[in-house]
């Protein structure tokens, strides 16, 4: 047993520790909550993380008054950040009581949005959010996995880093800029060339019927896919690199082609990739600006993907400043609460998957 086992054990295992040790003892971590530039800045240090949380508490029994003050101040700030989250949840809950009293749980399943009669239901928005995100993923996942495979397997070492950086630039572009580009470049292109072509070939499906006027569910899905590709690519690359090289070597030794060996690695990394996909879903679900500019703003469920729709985030963005009655405002806040719960569940699931994936590989490496 080398000393890095001891250090790893000493480091403790907070919820998000998912460090694995590759062949040369270089730490490769996947930190999905961070941007990839940050991830790589941390990983580049090429040394095991050695700071120990609680180091000070562990080795010092008590603190001098000045130090105690320092500790309490930093604790205060840390609590402020976590407290903000709790406060947000509490505020949202207290500001959605009116609609909760009026509609109860059926708010989630009702399909109605009539501010004149104060009659609200969340289903069209949940539908729009879910379908646009799903379309986004459907397009993004094959592309992202392809790019990740390219970066890990095919690209020459020197080229991989700049290309990876360039892909990450997509994540840095603000949402409103995507929206602007989508309105003036993407939507006319889709409306004039792509949608009529799809409708002529596949128009018998209810999915592609209706009026293909460029702004609707499908366009929103397409722009979401562009926004989500960098996240999935980044986490997938990390997870693929965390697969121990022994797997690939074994496959190649048994006579596999390059692609078959890659397939083995992908299979190894599949829970991590699922985690990446779910993270992308989390981002897509919370997107506001780009979606609200192209989704057509119509709170109704329709079978066609060309028809306008509405997502939770874009509904709040459009209508919050003018929710004149309290019930109306509470309805919007309750929509926000639903969105929060959805993103929370998605993010927890994603992190668990990515953690489990990289931990399993770490154990396999040590075995």
């Amino acid at each position, binding site marked *: 047993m080398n000393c890095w086992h001891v250090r790893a054990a000493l480091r403790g295992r907070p919820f998000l520790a998912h460090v694995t040790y590759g062949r040369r003892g270089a730490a490769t971590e996947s930190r999905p909550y961070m941007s990839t530039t940050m991830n790589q800045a941390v990983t580049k240090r090429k040394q095991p993380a050695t700071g120990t949380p609680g180091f000070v508490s562990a080795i010092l029994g008590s603190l001098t008054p000045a130090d105690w003050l320092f500790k309490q101040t930093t604790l205060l700030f840390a609590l402020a950040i976590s407290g903000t989250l709790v406060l947000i949840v509490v505020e949202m809950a207290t500001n959605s009581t009116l609609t909760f009293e009026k509609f109860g749980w059926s708010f989630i399943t009702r399909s109605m949005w009539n*501010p*004149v009669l104060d009659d609200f239901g969340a289903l069209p928005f949940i539908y729009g959010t879910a379908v646009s995100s799903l379309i986004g993923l459907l397009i993004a996942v094959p592309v992202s996995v392809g790019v990740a495979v390219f970066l890990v397997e095919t690209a020459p070492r020197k080229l991989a880093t700049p290309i990876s950086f360039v892909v990450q630039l997509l994540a840095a572009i603000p949402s409103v800029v995507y929206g602007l580009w989508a309105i*003036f470049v993407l939507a006319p292109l889709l409306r004039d060339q792509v949608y009529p072509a799809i409708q002529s070939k596949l128009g018998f499906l209810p999915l592609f019927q209706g009026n293909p006027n460029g702004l609707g569910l499908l366009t929103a899905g397409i722009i979401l896919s562009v926004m989500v590709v960098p996240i999935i690519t980044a986490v997938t690359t990390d997870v693929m690199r965390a697969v121990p090289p022994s797997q690939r070597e074994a496959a190649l030794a048994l006579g596999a082609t390059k692609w078959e060996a890659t397939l083995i690695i992908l299979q190894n990394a599949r829970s991590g990739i699922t985690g990446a996909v779910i993270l992308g879903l989390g981002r897509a679900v919370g997107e506001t600006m780009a979606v609200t500019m192209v989704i057509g703003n119509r709170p109704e469920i329709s079978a066609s993907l060309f028809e306008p729709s509405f997502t939770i985030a874009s509904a709040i963005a*459009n*209508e919050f400043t*003018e*929710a004149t009655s309290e019930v109306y405002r509470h309805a919007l806040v309750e929509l926000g609460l639903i969105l929060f719960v959805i993103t929370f569940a998605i993010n927890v699931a994603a992190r668990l998957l990515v953690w489990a994936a990289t931990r399993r590989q770490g154990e396999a490496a040590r075995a």
Partner: protein
Amino acid sequence: MTRERAAWKHGSTGLPQLFSVLLTATLLTISLAGCGSPGGGGDTEIKIQGAGATFPNPLYQKWFAEYNKSHSNVKFDYQSIGSGGGIKQISSRTVDFGGSDAPMKDEELKAAPGELLHIPTVLGAVVVTYNLPSVKTELNLTPEAIAGAFLGKITRWNDAAIASANAGVSLPDAPITIVHRSDGSGTSFVFTDYLSKVSPEWKEKVGAGGAVQWPAGGGEKGNEGVTGRVKQTPNSMGYTELIYAEENKLPVASIRNSTGQFVRPSLDSTTAAASGIAGQMPDDLRVSITNAPGATAYPISSFTYLLVYKEQQDQAKGKALVDFLWWAIHDGEQMAKDKLYAPLPDEVVKKSEAKIKSITFQGKPLHASGA
């Protein structure tokens, strides 16, 4: 080099230095700027914030710029976020005045923390505009055609309901893309109010309101958004204020009014719509002039209002606001015609003057007569 030394050395990549330089620059700018405004240049500068209807926004922006030229110590800012936003923000007292085409409902007035006054500023027209690249002449539309299209029952441009009023015009066999408002809108209120008057089916299914459950089409934010969408989407139809369509060279439909004439929206037809009602305006000046009687009246015309509290909370701001309102209904009206808004009829001006004179601070009227 040991790992520890490497880690220590990494602190000097130059990044923290760059970062602290940027941070210092930012903080310096902020402190200089912060000292600039509240205390510094223009100690007596009064800033007034308004928000609301997109309907009169092009004119209001012009007004504020002109007013600032002659009254350099008062700066107005108006954000066009929709009449619904205007009503909400003035009711929450988060702005100094609101703008709305739709008069406030009784419940909304009751819910406000103080008495709100409606001061009409100009008259405008809600037009039905469309984007038909193949049609060169402006269309005539009957109320049934408009209601049918917005109800989603008339789905193609060459439908009989539209074609019958436009003999000789070759309409394309294309689906109609309906564009309406996605935000709470006074323009929507005026439009749906008109449709409720001319179409019993509309009145029953949808009704009138700033934010209704539209049976067809997709929504955009503000008159700006609707006009933009119609401009960019072939075969679309939407409703917006006259100046937006004109400035963007979009065709407007002539609508058949209550006497059977097809009237094109314009300054004159809008003024004609208000002429009948002017003598009968209620005391609080809340009125609807859609489907007004008169052979030359344009059927979807409307007043637009500025919403102010009768009892102002800040003397300097209240005085500045009152002075501006007085200027608006007298001098400002001259600029209205350029922007295709109709000036207020004289009787309405008189009633507005009375309202402005009733605005008080701690009980004393703010408007000095003759100012």
